[in-house]
């Protein structure tokens, strides 16, 4: 259980960091980055709670995998929006 606790701490630490950055920063790129950190933190938490007697449950693994793919899609969309906003500011 100890090693899980370590990773749980790391995961919740990432969540806290990301929350802090999201609440205090307006820069679009950094916000996207924070959201990604948040997602990574949640992924660690999810998998850390999926450990049972040395085995890791396959279903949460699939969940997290799905989450990662979904996240990259949303990140790409967010960045495309940010770039377009920036481009329109130029014009």
């Amino acid at each position, binding site marked *: 259980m100890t090693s899980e606790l370590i990773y749980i701490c790391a995961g919740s630490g990432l969540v806290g*960091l990301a929350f802090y950055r999201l609440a205090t920063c307006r820069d679009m790129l950094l916000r996207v980055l924070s959201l*990604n950190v948040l997602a990574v933190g949640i992924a660690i938490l999810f998998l850390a709670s999926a450990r049972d007697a040395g085995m890791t449950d396959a279903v949460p693994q699939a969940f997290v995998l799905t989450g990662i793919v979904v996240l990259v899609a949303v990140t*790409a969309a967010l960045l*495309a929006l940010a770039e377009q906003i920036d481009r329109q500011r130029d014009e």
Partner: protein
Amino acid sequence: MSLAFDVLLAFGVVFTAAAALGTHDRVASIAGFVVTGLLVALSLVRLGAPDVALAEAAIGAGLTGALLLRSAWRLKPAESRVSPPIDRIIVALIAVCLSGALAWAVYTAPGAALYPALVSERLAESGVTNPVTAVLLNFRAWDTLLEIAVLFVALILVRIVAPAHPQPVVLGELMLPFARIVVPMCAFLAGHLLWQGASVPGGAFQAGAILAGGSLVLMLGGFAVPTPRLLSWGMMVALLGLAVFAVAALSTEALTGTLLLYPDGAAKIWILMIEALLTLSIAAMLCLLFCGMPRRPLK
């Protein structure tokens, strides 16, 4: 020993993430983020999730990092308004409380998972031996279908907001020698991951991501210029993924009477076919999400 490693790794993860979020230099913070991603991938291996670790390294760290870098080049830095310190202290306090509460909640959760027993009981019927693949493409294939739809709509969204004529990012000659080694390796690795995903860690998403990475290296190196023609072919392949998966789902229903229930004994074939197609399609989608795509010409 391994405990010390875990502690070090976890500390590294939090530290690099803090560094990534704390610095004002964008490239540095993206670099920090990528390193965090790789360390997280390592932690995931330690947590017994090598499939996820692969995906995190390829997609979470690699592709996301590349996307962020691309945007960092294009976006002008925003005027940074620093919130008043009192606000920051309050937010920091909340963040600490949140972290603590979360850690406590997760740690004390009873965690009587029902799934492992169910999965191992039914793995034999699923047609594959890797439990994660079984979950993704058999037990909960519906999630995966919708996930492909997420990629699809992200692609359309990028197409809507992207400028009419995207400018490819080309790093040029520098990349060429690198590309010559990386690309064939990527192709090989992708094929391998796809094939072995049925039994050991690996599968469509990781393979797709690796393939996408290879293609991106080609493009960044100017080796393959993303001509409109190439891009529209890519688009076709990308769109095909959702279409074929949905049609396959409907056909299974027509054949067996149940949505996504593969015909008896043919589960492995079905899953492999779908996975192969998804690999191509995911690769195409991820590539296009990175380099953008031209909108249709007006006429």
